[in-house]
């Protein structure tokens, strides 16, 4: 089992002296390749900080973070950009799809920025949209898509080009329950295919799609679900 993401005593603090605020106390977390981990906690508990550190959008104040075997501290800005284009994809609650680009163009954009030829990125984008069940919408613009369709395109953009690690921050916030569930099924199937998902959510019903749920409070991991509970809990439903 390979380790996809590892935090060793990673922390993040803002400000100095008496205005210093610790968003994340020194934290250890290891996520295996193929694993689906959900992070839950109240507002301000450090969930988004944790995700930003893993995605290289922010740097830790102390400690070490390894993503796909690479020590993030050893990557400069362009090294991190390459990591985000090839290894790590992001999905946010606000989809951030570019309104002037079609679904296919949105999905292929990160690959184009990575310098891959247009013909190849187009084929890869279509293949990803196919897997997500929205291949028929490739030529549409974001404003002509429903919330659920837009979220599928956003996931497509995060995964296209073979990126293995998906970081999702409240990706189902604006969706109804059944559409949100279909997004969770997509994340689940990404892990079945060997990918890794780290999901930040308030929604327990969505977190429950994960293999493991980690609870954050006041910038610390305080608890997590037990692997052994997987087999023993839930008797009574056939």
């Amino acid at each position: 089992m390979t380790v996809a993401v590892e935090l060793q005593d990673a922390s993040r603090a803002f400000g100095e002296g008496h205005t210093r605020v610790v968003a994340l106390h020194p934290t250890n977390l290891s996520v295996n390749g193929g694993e689906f981990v959900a992070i839950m906690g109240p507002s301000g508990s450090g969930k988004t900080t944790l995700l930003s550190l893993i995605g290289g959008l922010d740097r830790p104040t102390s400690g070490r973070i390894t993503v796909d075997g690479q020590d993030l501290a050893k990557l400069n800005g362009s090294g991190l950009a390459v990591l985000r284009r090839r290894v790590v994809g992001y999905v946010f609650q606000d989809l951030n799809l570019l309104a002037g680009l079609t679904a296919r163009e949105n999905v292929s954009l990160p690959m184009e920025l990575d310098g891959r030829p247009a013909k190849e990125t187009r084929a890869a984008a279509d293949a990803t949209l196919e897997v997500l069940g929205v291949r028929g919408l490739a030529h549409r613009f974001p404003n002509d898509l429903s919330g659920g369709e837009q979220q599928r395109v956003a996931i497509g953009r995060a995964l296209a080009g073979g990126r293995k690690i998906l970081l999702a921050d409240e990706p189902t916030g604006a969706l109804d329950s059944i559409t949100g569930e279909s997004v969770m099924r997509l994340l689940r199937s990404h892990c079945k295919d060997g990918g890794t998902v780290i999901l930040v959510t308030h929604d327990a019903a969505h977190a429950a799609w994960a293999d493991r749920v980690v609870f954050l409070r006041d910038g610390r991991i305080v608890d997590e679900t037990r692997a052994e509970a997987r087999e023993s809990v839930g008797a009574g439903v056939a």
Partner: protein
Amino acid sequence: MSFRYGLLALLAEEERHGYELKTAFERRTGGQWAINIGQVYTTLQRLERDGLVEPAGADGERNDYRITAAGRGQLDEWYATPVVAEGPPRDELMIKVLLAVAAADVDVTDLLQRQRRASIEQLQAYTRRKARAHPADDLAFLMMLDALIYRTEGEIRWLDAAEARIRQSPNTNGGDR
């Protein structure tokens, strides 16, 4: 809920005998409530006594029943009446937390987190069954799982709200953590 409406609903579709009613009820409601055949016959006898069903004539060994006009009337009324709980249910979790908040020697924050973890593990178990179900074939089963999932999710939301309230309150033993 009285099982009598379940039998009336199935007999409103077609004439059935006792064993058919048992299997149809179990299948239709997601396969989670096993019914004892004795319970089916006792209920049928009461429904017949009250004029809501009647024997449809002997067919060899089987005794089919059919719904009467009065039975249809009661069934329609049942479907038309929303289900509203009378007073708060005697919920062990709710009572336990309310007592713990006032108890000096119970760490409520720990209690809430242990419960939250257990409830999420329960949700994971339901969700794994949901992931394995076939949307086309298992509609009743999926709807039953949805009901269990949203009920458990509601419980977790309540735990979250309880913790937030305790943290904001100066007068509770969990408030200083």
